[in-house]
């Protein structure tokens, strides 16, 4: 066990924690916007897969991971707006339509990869950026300030989201539409437009999450998200619909995954039991949902389509 507590192992584990928290944080924050406005988007995983594929393919063709990231964001935006058509305009039942979006993304990303790319090739990942000065702090500097750019972006979105939700008119509108759409509507806030906006943000961030995954590992494979998008949705419940809560949840899950990785790398887990340890994130998600389910109040209008004159 002592191998786990050497400085190298601790720095590696904590650095991996931040890296692995990144996709959950991006997707979770995006999902949070939608849910705060009253829309449950279960299609996150599908959008992540599509965003990831287009980021991969663009980077493969242009050798520019930044263009790849941009492609991931663009695909996310398109999917977010389509989700607006489905959930807001067509008022589809959100619990099921999201599964449709997931299957669509799962199938299409796999189809395009097989048809256009074929054999897996590695791409250039986003560069690692050492933050001047801060990276020289012992230990902390080593794991926190020597990350890939997308990781910093994900964490910077937390204070930005807190500000946007709590200090801006847009944020007030989101909360009003999620709690009492009829009242918001009577005060002249467009429920539909607000929800389209939050779903667009959610789509962009889900695309970023998928792109972020691909652009840190440098590879794409069928269903590479392996349930992360769904865990991100659970994190929003776990995080009580608040940016800080989502971040803490993402860090916890990042840490669990990083710890399992590290234990495997140090051969502290027998190979035969690794699959059992891989259950940890999903099992802990369930326990966390049980723990928080009766403590935090979901947005009142969550999953309820709105139409005037009801």
């Amino acid at each position, binding site marked *: 066990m002592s191998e786990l507590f050497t400085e190298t192992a601790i720095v590696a584990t904590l650095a991996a924690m931040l890296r692995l928290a990144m996709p959950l944080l991006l997707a979770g924050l995006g999902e949070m916007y939608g849910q705060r406005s009253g829309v*449950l988007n*279960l299609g996150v995983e*599908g959008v992540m897969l599509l965003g990831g594929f287009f980021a991969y393919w663009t980077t493969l063709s242009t050798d520019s991971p930044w263009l790849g990231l941009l492609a991931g964001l663009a695909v996310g935006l398109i999917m977010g707006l389509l989700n607006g058509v*489905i959930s807001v*305009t*067509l*008022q*589809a*039942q*959100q*619990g*099921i*339509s999201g*599964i*449709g*979006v*997931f*299957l*669509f*993304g*799962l*199938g*299409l990303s*796999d*189809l395009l990869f*097989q*048809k256009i790319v074929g054999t897996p090739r590695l791409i250039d990942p986003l560069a690692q950026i050492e933050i001047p000065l801060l990276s020289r702090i012992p230990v902390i500097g080593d794991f926190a300030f020597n990350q890939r750019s997308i990781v910093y972006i994900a964490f910077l979105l937390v204070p930005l989201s807190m500000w946007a939700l709590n200090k801006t008119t847009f944020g007030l509108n989101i909360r009003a539409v999620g709690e009492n759409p009829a009242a918001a509507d009577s005060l002249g806030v467009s429920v539909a437009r607000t929800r389209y906006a939050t779903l667009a943000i959610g789509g962009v961030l889900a695309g970023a999450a998928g792109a972020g995954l691909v652009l840190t590992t440098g590879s794409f494979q*069928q*269903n590479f998200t*392996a*349930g992360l998008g*769904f*865990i991100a*949705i*659970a994190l929003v*419940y776990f995080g009580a619909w608040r940016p800080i809560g989502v971040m803490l949840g993402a860090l916890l899950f990042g840490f669990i995954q990083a710890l399992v990785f590290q234990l495997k790398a140090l051969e502290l887990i027998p190979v*035969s*039991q690794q*699959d*059992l340890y*891989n*259950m940890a*994130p*999903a*099992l802990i*998600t*369930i326990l966390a*949902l*049980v723990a928080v*389910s*009766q403590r935090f109040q*979901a947005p009142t209008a*969550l*999953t*309820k*389509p709105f*139409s005037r*004159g*009801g």
Partner: protein
Amino acid sequence: MTSRTSASGRLQRTLIPVIAVVAALALGAIMLLALGANPLTGYWAMIKGAFGSGNGLIETALKATPLMLVGVGITIAFRANVINIGGEGQMILGAIFTTGLVLLLPDMSGFILIPLVILAGLLGGALWGAIPGALKAYFGVSEILSTIMLNLVAAQLMNYLLRGPFIDPNSNELGAIPQTERLSEGADLPILIGSRLHAGPLIAILAAIAAYVLLWRTTAGYRLRAVGLNPDAARYGGMPVKRSIVLALTFSGALAGLAGALLVFGSESHRFVTDGSAAGFTGSAGFNGIVTALFGALHPLWTIPSSFLFGGLLVGANSLQRAVQVPQALIVALNGLVVVFVVSSDWIRQRLGLVEAHQPEGNDDEVEAVEVVP
């Protein structure tokens, strides 16, 4: 209410899923064109592959079996206003229970073993359905999220067992395919026609009929539907709402578990095998069952033909791949579109003045009926 019982209401309920599939296939044709393939050649190959020969039909029936069982299970849950997205995990648990049992009783004769196999499959799935049911009823945990998480847990449990305790003792430990040995012949499903068509499709059809009887001819089924239509009224009427929710997910899971068991013992290799992912064993039937349930208008009997159609799509996807070199993943994407179109179509019906009010079936994770005025 009137729209559900009247003849025109029934027609719409049948027509809308059909239109959704046609629309999805049309978009699929555009995708095929974009990929440089001829959609007519592709679709024709698909139809011929699935329904154009005796062998094709047999394969279609075999592919339809898990879709039917999962789809009927999802229908039962839906009727109680709960959404079961845990078909994948429930199938896996059914397979685990039943494989474990057969490994324990290798020399048992088929007369006893086959009923036990069916029972163990039902039981494994029932357990994996009851857990999210209880979590929803007693802790208020969204069943959508808990069933998805249990899918992930089940997949890892399967990997652990197939790489460890269940592994084929004849394979060398490192890098071997995660699979069991050839399981006891006593547990082989009886063959009905030729060399491939086993009793699985028949069992699935009987299960669909049983589900129909359960929902419309028993008190438990009546309660289940009452809870689904209006939980508050059901509660005032003295019905056990929480127990009905648990029961619905238990039944739902049991049928998916049976699907998993039949998948193992009806397979050509007679082994429980995966590629390390849930879909590697289930072929994503746990998700595709959602499509057959929706296409079957959430009615157990309509789910039978619906499953044959989608089973055919899966079989035909093979032929499509050979004819126009477009990967079978196209079908997964099209299934997703069908789901989206079916659940989006309520709005269109309302706009056309076809229904008076929104049907409160399976609205969301909060059990609550929503009235929408057109």
